[in-house]
């Protein structure tokens, strides 16, 4: 078993390009879509028609008290111009009792800004009435005559949520690729005859399978590990501190992915067929399962239902819960056991198909 396992690593060492490029793609995609997190400051242009200059300065000082945000004082005319020219995406208008955003373009950061502003408002004014005026969705969008305004109410998740989503979705998507493309080797081995060489050797068939599958399992876990470490250490994404939940979820997901690989190998007739269905399956699973955008955004009931049959859905949701909401392993029992169940099911069917076509 270990000789089969070690051999696969040796082969990977000789031809690592595919795996390395999937790791690189994960990081690139996350960088491209999500940018870096934490360290950067969000700049917000601020103005007021009601407040005096000194009142406004005082407000802005308070708003600037927290790191991560930089509020600049400006005036309505300048800001409208900047919005028109798309130099900025949004701006904050402060009044005595409430505040508004002028929004030129959809922005990922506006919710984070709003959370901050809201907090400062509440503490500063300490008026319960005002707290009531700010229910959860307190972004008021103002139709601005010359500026195209878009409703953001539903389409922006908070920046943390967005970040965690991209990180887990992209990582799982590309690890699915690595595992499935890697497992094509098994189909190729069956074709070229090295598999038969192993079968007629004194090695037990179960040892051959376990050695192979263990390789792809550890490869998958390793890839996710590398990506997460890069995101955590270099790109400042927040992974919370429920490491055990994350590890268990990752392992359950990778197990399901390897099992899916077995199922696909069992279904196809040739490595070529496998090569052409892998991108379709991975992308479809990732899209349905919400690796690219959260499933909550999908309104179609049928698609929502389909999401629930993909391992990607449970993997992403469980990871997000662990990273953002401190979910422990106990809280994630449901998605994790569904992943394991899928794994067992895929593996069982896959093995049967594979042994039957022999």
């Amino acid at each position, binding site marked *: 078993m270990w000789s089969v396992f070690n051999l696969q690593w040796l082969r990977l060492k000789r031809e690592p390009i595919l795996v390395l490029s999937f790791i690189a793609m994960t990081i690139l995609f996350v960088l491209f879509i999500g940018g870096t997190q934490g360290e950067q400051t969000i700049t917000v242009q601020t103005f007021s028609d009601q407040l005096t200059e000194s009142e406004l300065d005082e407000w802005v000082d308070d708003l600037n008290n927290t790191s991560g945000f930089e509020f600049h004082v400006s005036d309505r005319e300048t800001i409208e111009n900047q919005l028109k020219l798309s130099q900025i995406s949004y701006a904050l208008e402060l009044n005595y009792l409430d505040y508004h955003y002028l929004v030129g373009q959809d922005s990922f950061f506006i919710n984070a800004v709003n959370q901050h502003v809201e907090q400062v408002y509440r503490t500063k004014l300490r008026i319960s009435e005002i707290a009531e005026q700010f229910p959860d969705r307190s972004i008021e969008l103002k139709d601005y005559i010359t500026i195209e305004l878009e409703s953001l109410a539903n389409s922006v998740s908070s920046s943390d949520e967005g970040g965690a989503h991209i990180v887990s979705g992209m990582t799982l998507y590309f690890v699915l690729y690595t595992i499935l493309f890697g497992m094509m080797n098994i189909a190729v081995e069956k074709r070229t005859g090295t598999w038969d060489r192993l079968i*007629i050797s004194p090695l037990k068939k179960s040892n051959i399978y376990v050695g192979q599958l263990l390789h792809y399992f550890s490869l998958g876990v390793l890839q996710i590990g590398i990506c997460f470490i890069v995101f955590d250490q270099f790109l400042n994404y927040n992974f919370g501190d429920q490491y055990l939940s994350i590890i268990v979820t990752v392992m359950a997901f990778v197990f399901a992915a390897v099992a899916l690989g077995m199922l696909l190998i069992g279904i196809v007739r040739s490595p070529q067929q496998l090569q052409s269905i892998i991108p379709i399956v991975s992308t479809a699973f990732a899209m349905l399962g919400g690796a690219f955008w959260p499933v909550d955004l999908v309104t179609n009931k049928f698609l929502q239902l389909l999401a629930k049959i993909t391992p990607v859905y449970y993997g992403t949701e469980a990871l997000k819960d662990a990273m953002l909401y401190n979910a422990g392993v106990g809280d994630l029992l449901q998605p994790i056991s569904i992943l394991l169940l899928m794994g067992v099911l895929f593996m069982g069917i896959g093995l049967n198909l594979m042994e039957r076509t022999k």
Partner: protein
Amino acid sequence: MLQVNDLHKKFKTTTAVNGVNLYLDQGESVGLLGPNGAGKSTTISMISTLLQPTSGDIRFKGGDVFKKPDVIRPVLGVVPQEIALYEELTAYENMHFFGKTYGLSGEKLKNKIDEVLELVGLTDRKKERVKNYSGGMKRRINIAVSLMHEPELLIMDEPTVGIDPQSRSHILEMVRELNRKKGMSILYTSHYMEEVERLCDRVYIMDHGQIIASGTKEELKSILSSEDTILIEVHQKSEQFIDQLNEHSLVQQIAEVDTGYKVIVSKGADVFADIFEIANASQVKVKGVHVQTPTLEDVFLHLTGRKLRD
């Protein structure tokens, strides 16, 4: 050592093996000769426990190979028809890995690799990746890998297909040595009759899933004892010439060869004059006419009316 009784294998649309009987004694070198599609590889897959027969049984040292594969597996070496190697790895690494699957390790494994590399003549190329090898070198490593555990029975499935003459004669010489010097039993499959004639004590001739003749080379050739093989060399081939020869009452079989035609006629028949006459009539210039001692190829031609390599 090996007995195969009434072996059948049906695939969905074809019957690849249709009632094969054969045996092989310890230390023998036996040939399985037949054209492409005869069912040789399928037979071998069943003997090596890879493929379950539709019916029939295979016994190795008296035991059913499917009930107890552990008896045959450790002492069986199979050289597959296709190159079954990890091409991104070196020859050494391939041999190392497959040696390990047979329980070899440490010094013993290293020594064995060196010994087998020497045998196949690739010692100085062992650190190269298999994918950079020539066809002949790949074939040799394909064999080397199967020899790591010193099998008692070595089954070779067309081990010389598509390679240079040098590699080919190296392989043939090697197989002979293994058989003569090491006493390895060999089942050698081929559609080249010269190879089988050179290497094997006994031969099975297979066609359409069946053994159509078997015996020692001499026994097989005596099938042709009532026939002569005549080689007619011509400057230019002609359909008309064949047609007319075919109509001749003493001519039994005709096959085209590179330089002309091979004709099997009844023994002692005086057809020379007729051949020249027919050649004249169809305006074929004859270079020469020779009576040949029969080869296994001729036996196959006689039995099936076809040449081995079509």
